[in-house]
């Protein structure tokens, strides 16, 4: 396989973008990526998207987006893995370039969630319809059960959960593209409206619109497009049981552990080599469980890591410097690519007030459902 690099990135603001349609969002992000690399063609496009069909009644996003980008003719397809669609689109683009089949490939992610659909019901279609959604459970409910299990097993507290939201909002306050650019206090988090006990409003990522795109090419051609390419060292994907009830330990995300192990192995690194990480904090408990499953904190210590500052900007291993899904926003299909862009910018030293000093190796972890799919990428400054 060939070595692969990311050479450019583009991203819309995340938020309730009432004036932008699904295709507008894609074109804005894609054009920014293309102009960053000063190119006007690509060999292929992968569009990560969870549910254009249910959110805005639009399927068949590959050709639609290629067409509206003025590139009808190129190979383009949609990649779907619920909220991990963006990360999976990056993985598909990576293999396309690594295999030698294509040279210049756009990996994009997008979602238009604010357009009148019943968002909670659409998202719930990423749970097991027969054993979960049919009985009325929604994602806040599933993650609430994961949180309960974690509290039971490790003594994780409401303060631990709140610490994740406080940290990510503090990071997001520094991100001009974030949906919620403001800090919150632990008291605000713990007094916000109850959604599904123990999860409250400020433990939950918002409903967002947005798109993100990165441009991939062989590493040996990267300098044609940028002075500061970022190498993709490894990719790892895995699945776990779809239904939460089928897991041996509901407080442990097997698919995350497997996908991270595979990505570390391919990259030839240890978890302790990572300088900065973006992980899938769709709910505060998710960041706790993900960081544990990826071995970047010890089992049962995910909450403490946020509370002690270990995972804060300035800490030993800053996690979700973008603000995470919680503060930056979570247009589900776009999230995996947006995480990639945060790491891309961190490794290029372009993160301004959020810059992690001397960041050489970064990773992005993107997850679908209650953890039934997970994809991890490891990146390296070149």
């Amino acid at each position, binding site marked *: 396989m060939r070595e692969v690099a990311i050479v450019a990135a583009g991203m819309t603001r995340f938020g*309730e973008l*009432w*004036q932008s349609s699904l295709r507008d969002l894609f074109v804005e992000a894609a054009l920014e990526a293309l102009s960053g690399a000063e190119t006007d063609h690509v060999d292929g496009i992968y569009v990560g998207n969870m549910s254009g069909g249910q959110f805005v009644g639009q399927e068949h996003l590959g050709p639609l987006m290629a067409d509206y980008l003025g590139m009808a003719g190129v190979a383009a397809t949609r990649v779907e893995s619920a909220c991990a669609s963006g990360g999976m689109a990056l993985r598909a683009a990576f293999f396309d370039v690594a295999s030698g089949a294509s040279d210049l490939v756009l990996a994009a992610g997008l979602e238009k969630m*604010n357009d*009148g659909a019943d968002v909670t019901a659409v998202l719930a279609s990423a749970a097991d319809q027969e054993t979960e959604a049919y009985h009325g459970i929604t994602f806040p409910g599933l993650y609430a059960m994961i949180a309960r299990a974690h509290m039971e097993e490790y003594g994780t507290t409401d303060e631990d959960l709140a610490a994740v939201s406080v940290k990510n909002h503090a990071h997001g306050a520094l991100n001009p593209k974030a949906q919620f650019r403001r800090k919150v206090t632990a008291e605000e988090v713990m007094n916000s*409206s*109850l959604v599904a006990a123990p999860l409250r409003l400020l433990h939950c990522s918002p*409903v967002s619109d947005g798109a993100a795109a990165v441009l991939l090419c062989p590493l040996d051609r990267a300098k044609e497009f940028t002075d500061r390419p970022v190498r993709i060292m490894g990719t790892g994907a895995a699945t776990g049981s779809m239904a939460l009830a089928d897991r041996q330990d509901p407080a442990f995300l097997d698919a995350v552990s497997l996908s991270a192990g595979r990505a570390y192995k391919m990259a030839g690194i240890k978890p302790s080599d990572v300088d900065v990480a973006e992980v899938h904090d769709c709910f505060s408990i998710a960041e706790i469980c993900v960081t544990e499953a990826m071995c970047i904190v010890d089992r049962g210590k995910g909450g403490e890591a946020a509370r002690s500052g270990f995972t804060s900007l300035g800490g030993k291993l800053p996690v979700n410097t973008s603000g995470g899904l919680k503060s930056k926003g979570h247009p589900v299909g776009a999230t995996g690519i947006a995480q990639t862009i945060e790491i891309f910018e961190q490794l290029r030293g372009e993160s301004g007030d959020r810059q992690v000093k001397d960041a050489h190796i970064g990773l992005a972890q993107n997850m679908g459902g209650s953890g039934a799919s997970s994809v991890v990428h490891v990146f390296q400054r070149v």
Partner: protein
Amino acid sequence: MAGIVGYGAFVPRNRIKSEEIARQWGKDPETIRRGLLLEEKSVPGIDEDTITISVAAARSALDRAGIDPQKIGAVYIGSESHPYAVKPSGTVVADALGIGPEVHVADFEFACKAGTEAMFVAYGLVEAGKVEYALGIGADTSQGAPNDALEFSASAGGAAFIFGTRSTLADVVDTYSYTSDTPDFWRREGEFYPRHGGRFTGEPAYFKHVLAASRGMLEKTGLKAADFRYAVFHMPNGKFPLAAGKQLGFKKEQLETGWVVNTMGNTYSGSSPTGLAAILDVAEPDDLILITSFGSGAGSDSFVLRATAELPKRRGHAPTVRSMLDGRRRYLTYGEYAKVREKIIVNT
């Protein structure tokens, strides 16, 4: 210069508390009280509707105006709960008040903006010299589907304004309207309850139109927020009008008098007009008042009014809005509420 020569409001005596509605549906009452700033709302009695509310409010307006009803040349009622789909509310109201038959009558509909729309046209005809006096009313027995967020706010009440050129209580300094095709809230023919676009009703609908109309009004008159003693904005809940006022630079003291929503609820077409009536109940001569309505679909009407020396002399001729909000009330259980709002279907 045309202005308001008489005004009146009416709020039914029945109330239901947010807590009682929340309990019915297993919702957290604190979220409603703190989040939407809604304590309770008015509920129409079984025999109260847009027509009876309009008549009651207009009687008070006539009492304050002290004019012969026969001199009123136009009657306009704005509502989204006219009792009949076909057959005007205005004919019943005009007849009950002793107006006409030499009178122009029309029912208006523009979601929650229909009230200020009726006022705008009434004012325009008087200003143009086509009629001596014109009556504009905003009244509703608002619909909100059971277990919808609207159920905590949709309430009953209204206000009536008689426009004329002599002996005004408040002069209309200027008006401004702002309208666009924004489908945030609607009810189709034959449906009981309106439907809405959730959060789309906020930023791109309410705030866009209320802020644009208010800013347009300020620019047109060369006035700034600090020049006003009072301001009132359409009140779909407690939070929105305060947020809009703050964004426009108004302070709490300017907003609280007309902010009647936390105990009255959202009387739809009657909302900002009732807030205006509450302001006229206490305003002093020369006070400047800003009112901006909002109707889904969507649009806003703004008026700048200046109170005259006549206002303190004649406002005592009819009950104040506060006396109806804080006076005798009857609290309903959810069951009684369901009965009077005819939510219980009985086969006949």
